[in-house]
């Protein structure tokens, strides 16, 4: 006997993501899902973002990794609450993991949660976590051809950060081509060139994020 189901496969994840989102909205906490390859500088970018915004906002970080507490310890050492999720082999975060992580945070005291997704350009794209924005980082040494190889992540990102911009002269990275491919895949996403460890270019990115946080706070 054939039965029609016609239901999204990630129904359960999507439902839990909606619950997360409802909580974030109720508490007025802006949630950013940051995605990139391993080594692109996700943690450095988070630290630079914290430095740019910590005077204005209360920030917490959720760290997703297959194993270890290395990243959460780096963030905690910066005086910011950090929750480490170890996915135990899974290549992306799912909304139930986020649900458990936020239980460990004081949601009433926060303005911004940055989720560092597992280093991967493919899998995190399909899993809604309840975040307000997905943003991706590509670092210069990875090469300007990555949007050709991993178009999906560039299409769903609301902003693209080009990190390690200070190494541009050392690598054969064609910035013009990179920007043009990103625009053709996603005409709305701004590209922010930064050098996270030096703090360069972070202001424009922090301003974009501030606008989004303020839009949430003012209810628009």
């Amino acid at each position, binding site marked *: 006997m*054939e039965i029609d189901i016609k239901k999204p*496969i990630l129904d359960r994840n999507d439902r839990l993501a909606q619950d997360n989102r409802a909580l974030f909205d109720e508490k007025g906490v802006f949630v950013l899902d940051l995605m990139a390859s391993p080594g692109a500088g996700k943690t450095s970018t988070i630290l630079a973002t914290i430095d740019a915004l910590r005077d204005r906002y209360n920030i917490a970080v959720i760290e997703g990794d297959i194993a270890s507490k290395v990243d959460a310890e780096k963030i905690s050492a910066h005086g910011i609450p950090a929750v480490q999720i170890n996915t135990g082999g899974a290549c992306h975060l799912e909304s139930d993991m986020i649900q458990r992580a936020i239980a460990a945070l004081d949601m009433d005291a926060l303005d911004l949660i940055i989720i560092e997704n597992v280093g991967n350009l493919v899998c995190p794209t399909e899993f809604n976590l309840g975040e307000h924005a997905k943003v991706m980082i590509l670092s210069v040494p990875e090469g300007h051809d990555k949007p050709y190889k991993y178009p999906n992540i560039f299409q769903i990102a609301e902003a693209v950060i080009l990190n390690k911009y200070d190494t541009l002269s050392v690598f054969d990275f064609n910035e013009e081509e990179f920007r043009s491919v990103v625009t053709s895949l996603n*005409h709305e996403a701004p590209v922010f060139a930064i050098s996270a460890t030096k703090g360069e270019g972070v202001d424009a990115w922090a301003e974009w994020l501030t606008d989004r946080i303020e839009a949430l706070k003012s209810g628009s």
Partner: protein
Amino acid sequence: MHEMGIVSGILSSAVDAAEKEGASKINDVRISVGVLTEIQDFALQFAWESLSPGTIAEGAELVATFVSPVSKCSQCDTEFEHDRFEIVCPNCGNFVCEQIKGRELTIDSIDID
């Protein structure tokens, strides 16, 4: 790799729906997968073979229909098929287009006894 998470979603939906109908066995599960999800059939099948044993879906066939991307031009409303990369209206050259197909991830139907 994310096929594992996808397949566990398929399996739980299929088993729930089958049990609601009082089924003892699932013969096949039909799903639609948009090409833009980057999901690979061989990885789906591998995950299905790993996760379905021990459930009423053990031995069931997982049949994936892949859906090509289609977008609609925001200027002239032309609907057009395209590949994973170039999303440009063939009629007016505009690249501001709305994705209408290609990101599906749906469980369509199951066959049960």
